[in-house]
């Protein structure tokens, strides 16, 4: 809109109608170009170093447990069989050694691999209206299929996402003393307040009646029918779907420092089925930096781009020294070269001279680089 206003303003300006608005026409010189590339390099390399450094300072303890936590029965089918058998206890104990001091807060994540939360069928399978208000229109729930109705009554919360809620649980001991994990405040405040209803209680939720599944696929966690949805932070975290098939979800926070040499014992209730699709499950304890979690990518990428930029500047310097080119020399204008050439034959032949010239230049540059 404001642009329209400006255009109207300019319409009254004769310089606009005559296309004579004062224009800034930046002039490219090799000097400028070299300085720009240098400047980019000079800016990017320290930034990259800084980012890399802070990422390196992040301490992470990662424990992959999906294979070690089940009997080593080989085939996939056996594993699926095992995990789907609700009668067997699936407790599993893991020991994690803290190798470096970790400052609080230390975040506890579970990490899933090969889990497509971004699958088209999956990502839409929810009803935001229902999550906030409890009952929802047909159209809003249409995407929830096949987890929409049971015996004609709507499932609350409906949809594949809620149904497949991750349900492994962990209990931590630090040097054999129970370690308190803060499980509150792991979901986004905005979600708790404005996206999930405080008076919406799970009802008719299939996972709450595992016996009724009758051999069809079992979902994930059950939901306490007496806890409103916005109090179930695990659900809220889970329902923020991940964009990649590898993702971490916050499970809790450790509100104390850990020191190198500390031994953490985790009792895992390993019930979530990732065996059908060769998924992985990991437990992660990690600190953060100003850039977030441990991720060298940003730092390295900055270093690479900065480095290339300086290299490019050098290439330009090199070319400029080796074959300085008086740009704007009008003798390069082809029509000054051979005036009166018959132009009828092929207008596209205008640039022939340049093509030749340019190829020479190109070869030279190649020689320069090698």
């Amino acid at each position, binding site marked *: 809109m*404001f*642009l329209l206003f*400006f255009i109207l303003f300019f319409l009254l300006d*004769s310089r606009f*109608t*005559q*296309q004579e608005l004062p224009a*800034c*026409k930046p*002039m490219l010189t*090799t000097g400028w*170009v070299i300085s720009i*590339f240098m400047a*980019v390099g000079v800016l990017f390399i320290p930034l990259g170093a800084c980012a890399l450094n802070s990422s390196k300072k992040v301490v992470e303890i990662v424990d992959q447990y999906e294979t070690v936590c089940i009997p080593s029965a080989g085939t996939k089918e056996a594993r699926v069989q095992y995990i789907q058998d609700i009668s067997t206890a699936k407790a599993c104990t893991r020991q994690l050694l803290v190798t470096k001091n970790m400052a609080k807060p230390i975040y506890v994540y579970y990490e899933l691999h090969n889990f*497509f*939360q971004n*699958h*088209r*069928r999956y*990502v839409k399978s929810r009803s*935001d209206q229902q999550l906030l208000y409890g009952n929802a229109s047909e159209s809003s729930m249409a995407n929830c299929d096949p987890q929409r109705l049971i015996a004609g009554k709507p499932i609350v919360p409906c949809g594949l996402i809620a149904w497949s809620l991750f349900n492994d649980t962990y209990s931590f001991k630090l040097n054999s003393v129970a370690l308190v994990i803060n499980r509150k405040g792991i979901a986004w405040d905005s979600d708790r307040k404005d996206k999930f209803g405080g008076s919406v209680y799970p009802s008719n939720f299939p996972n709450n009646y595992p016996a009724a599944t009758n051999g069809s*696929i079992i979902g994930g966690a059950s939901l306490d029918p007496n806890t409103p949805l916005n109090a179930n932070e695990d659900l809220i975290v889970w329902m923020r*779907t*991940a*964009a*990649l*098939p590898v*993702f*971490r*979800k916050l499970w809790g926070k450790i509100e104390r420092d850990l020191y190198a040499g500390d031994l953490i014992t985790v009792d895992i209730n390993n019930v979530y089925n990732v065996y059908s*699709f*060769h998924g992985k499950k990991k437990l992660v304890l990690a600190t953060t930096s*100003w*850039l*977030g*979690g441990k*991720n060298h*990518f940003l730092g390295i990428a900055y270093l690479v*781009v*900065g480095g290339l930029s300086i290299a*490019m500047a050098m290439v*330009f310097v090199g*070319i400029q020294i080796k074959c300085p*080119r008086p*740009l704007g*020399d*009008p*003798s*390069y*204008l*082809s*029509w*000054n070269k051979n*005036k009166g050439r018959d*132009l*009828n034959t092929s207008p*596209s032949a*205008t640039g022939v001279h*340049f093509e030749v010239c340019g190829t020479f230049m*190109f070869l030279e540059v190649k020689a320069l680089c090698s």
Partner: protein
Amino acid sequence: MAEIKEDEEDARPPRISRDSSNKEKNSGRCVYINEGDRYPDLYCNNRVSNTKYNLWNFLPKNLWEQFGRFMNKYFLLIAILQLWPLITPVNPASTWGPLLLIFSVSACKEAWDDYNRYKLDKQANERMVWVVKKGVKTRIQAQDIHVGDIVWLREKDEVPCDMILLGSSDPQGVCYIETSTIDGETDLKTRVVPSPCIGLNSELLHKIKGIIECGYPDRDIRRFDANLRLFPPFIDTDYFPITVNNTLLQSCFIRNTEWACGVAVYTGNETKLGMSRGLPSPKLTAVDAMIDKLTGAIFVFQVVVVIILGFAGNAWKSTEADKLWYVHYPKAAPWYEFIVIPLRFELLCSIMIPISIKVSLDLAKSMYAKFIDWDLHMYDEKTDTPAVATNTAISEDLGQIEYILTDKTGTLTENLMVFKKCCIKGSCYGDSTRDAVKDPALLRALNENDPEVLKFLTVMAVCNTVVPSRSPNGSISYKAQSQDEEALVSAASHLRVVLLNKAANCVEVSVLGAVLEFDILDVLEFTSDRKKMSVIVRERQTGELKLLTKGADEAIFSSVHNDQQVRRVAEIVDQYSQMGLRTLCLAWRDIREEEYHDWSRKFKEASSSIVDREWKIAEVCVLMERNLELLGATAIEDKLQDGVAETIESLRDAGINFWMLTGDKQLTAAQIALSCNFVLPEPQGQLLYVQGATQSDVGASLERVLRTMQISSTEHKYQDVAFVIDGLALEFALKYYRQLFAELASLCRTAICCRVTPSQKAQLVHLVKSWEFRTLAIGDGGNDVRMIQEAHVGVGISGREGLQAARAADYSLAKFRFLKRLILVHGRYSYNRSAFLSQYSIYKSLVLCFIQIFFSFVSGISGTSLFNSFSLMAYNVLYTSVPVMASVLDKDIDEKTVLQHPQILKYCQAGRLLNPSTFAGWFGRALFHGAVVFLITMHVYVNEKSEMEEVSLVALSGCIWLQAFVVALETSSFTTIQHIAIGGNLVAFYIFNLVASTVKWGGMYTIMFRICSQRAYWLTMLLIVGAGIGPIAALKFFRFFYRPSLINILQYRERRARVTEANATSSSNAASATSSGSTSSSQRAAQDEESSSVYQPLLLSTKDRTKRQ
């Protein structure tokens, strides 16, 4: 093309077939005078309707028209597919919204135009007119006039339908009309009451009965063939022939005549004007065609992607997806399951062809047209005429013109005729210093009452269609349809042979003070085929019958008896032509009484024939126009317009080939061609003549010329070769030697075609077009209209010959010299801008599309959309449309530089800025940028940060940042508007998204606030810009410095010149301030000046250099 053919048939009808076909279909309609109610239903009433639609058919008809275009069909298909929720990745509103908007905007525009037409029609239809019904004069609405009604008109009234004049206030039965609304000619024309009706008073006219036979309605406003027969008690004549001179055509105005009445013969939309109405079919520019081609290619690419991804998706689903228990695929799939995933990808990829490209191009085009309208450099102060772009859609084509076909008279010349020289019976009057009218020798001869001179001057004064009108103070002014005639009559009156008065059949001429009266018996009118006109007069005093003739030399020479004279006059005429003068020969002969009677009967017969009248008359005329006595020749000068030579020179430098198509003589045309730089003079240039009067002659001549041409082009003997061909030879060449002619035409840059008819002009344009060259036709008169309409771009000069050409044209200019600016500045900029705009529009959508495609590989090839509906819709409509629109102000190089180096236009002609390979560059860039955004986003936003909504917005803002930089990189000149558009757009993006993030129920709730507070987000943006723009900038800079295009070189020069200028002034300022002056700065300035002086002469062509110094 079909239309052209049909027209040609009209112009030169095959006689025999016409006759036979006409017998079958009778001869058209019979109109019973004063019996308007006789056939109320046979003919339509006088309701004029120019509207395209009515209330009921508007919607279906308009939609049908809009869906005629491939792109619109595509958009509709996509929108319909999106209604299927199973496959749509986004809310259907994201497509339906913009689609409906676009369709309703163009529908509204159409409706508004149509409504305006309706209003005008209504105004015309409801105008009150006096009509005689059943012998009683009543006042009715114009739309209720029926064929056969007698309509009464007063002075200044507009004629409501095509009528045949029956009576007028003038006792001689003359009625003056102005026809500017039909043919743009502003002079008054005379119309006469058919002789049986002359003298009828208004009472009789109320009761008049009769029958008029006329042909079916057609659109030829210059021909009206009908017969009139009055019933008793009125003089029961034989059929009396009616010509266009007896008619009042719809939309003319009655002038200088108190009242007139006539019988309605054609009404409503069946009038001559109504038939020739009709909206011209839209022209498609080369840029449009290329865009269509590229869009087609993109569509193919899209289909390939869809098929591949669809296959992969289905494969992945059958092997992997079943294992993903949480996706919960139903066991039994419906039969159409296999097409679901491909269709999903089709929808995901549908934005590859963005709707916005159409909108932004249309907007940009109307902007170009406005710039043309506004341009003060193309405004002629003398006539207060600005340049007008009537067709707003084809400005890009101006930049790609390869051939200009131009008319001569009035286009290159002023069309301001001055009588310069004459030759009377072998003696020449007038020389380089004096016009003939001031030549003492002629004045002396006049004083001596030299009979030959008097004969000559009498023919000049009488043999014409000029209307003298006496102003109250007694001075006489002449109104003429032809400028030549006016010049002749004025010259005669200067020599005291004054045309005093012209009533219907009588001419008064004062010859040296003595008034002579002539009865005009017949006028053998001028046609472009006969190339001469004659009048048969009877001198009142002596009763002698005379035939006075004037015409083109070869037309006269062939019918002259005294060969001795002919040779001498032919020589002189040649001399005159070589001086670029327009020549006419005058002749006369005495006619014997019985010969006249004999002939007169034949003439009447021919004139009253309804079929092929023109041709039959011409045949009869030959019988009379023979055995003439040649009196001499006149030479009239038509001055060249200002700046014609320079304009043609620089346009030729720009690689544009010129063809001159003129009705003038060969020599005159060649002379004008030389004087306006069409061809270089003799040592460098050469004119080759294609001549011949028979098929074989022309063939031989063509071959000879072609051989010469081939030799000279291999030997580089001449820089410039042009061929000259006349109308007759052209006729043969086009009919029998098309191939040879095409070869010849492709070899030389210039052609001069003289003595060509309007339809030949159009044919030539069509021919050049058929060799796939972009053509521009420029002309000023009614005879250029067909050529103008046929060419890719038609330019009309709004000059003295009326506005007919200017109206039919796409652009109208006041002067020929503005053509240079129109093409070099406006055409070139428009092409450049559209080339950027269209490719960029596709590029930006491709970027988004590639990200979606990449994302599908990490989302199980299931067709998930990374972006939400709002972002997808807003991306094309809001986020990226504004900066790209600002590019309509971009100028790669200054106007001045372009005008100095017209050669740069060759870049546009060759389509260097928009072709498959440049587009491949943009495609590659889109792929690269898509990859950069996707990879960086997906690597930074991993693990706990990998949240769909956040990632989506990060990727989107990455694209927006890249867009800002890409537009900036491709812009050459930044005005305030560009700064605002590029910078402001980025700010606006954040504002939009921050606002969208406050909407609780939206998917984006809080997301933008959340990511804006992350330092990682801003680092990601910087990285995306660095990684995305760096390589592209490096490549661009490398090209700029080491493989510069011609444009780059000029850009660099232009900018460096400015910098040195600025340096020079600043350093000289510094020098004066410090009085002594720092040596270093003045030295540098001196160096700069030196270096620039070294470059300067090289840059400028030799001619400019001399001008500079």
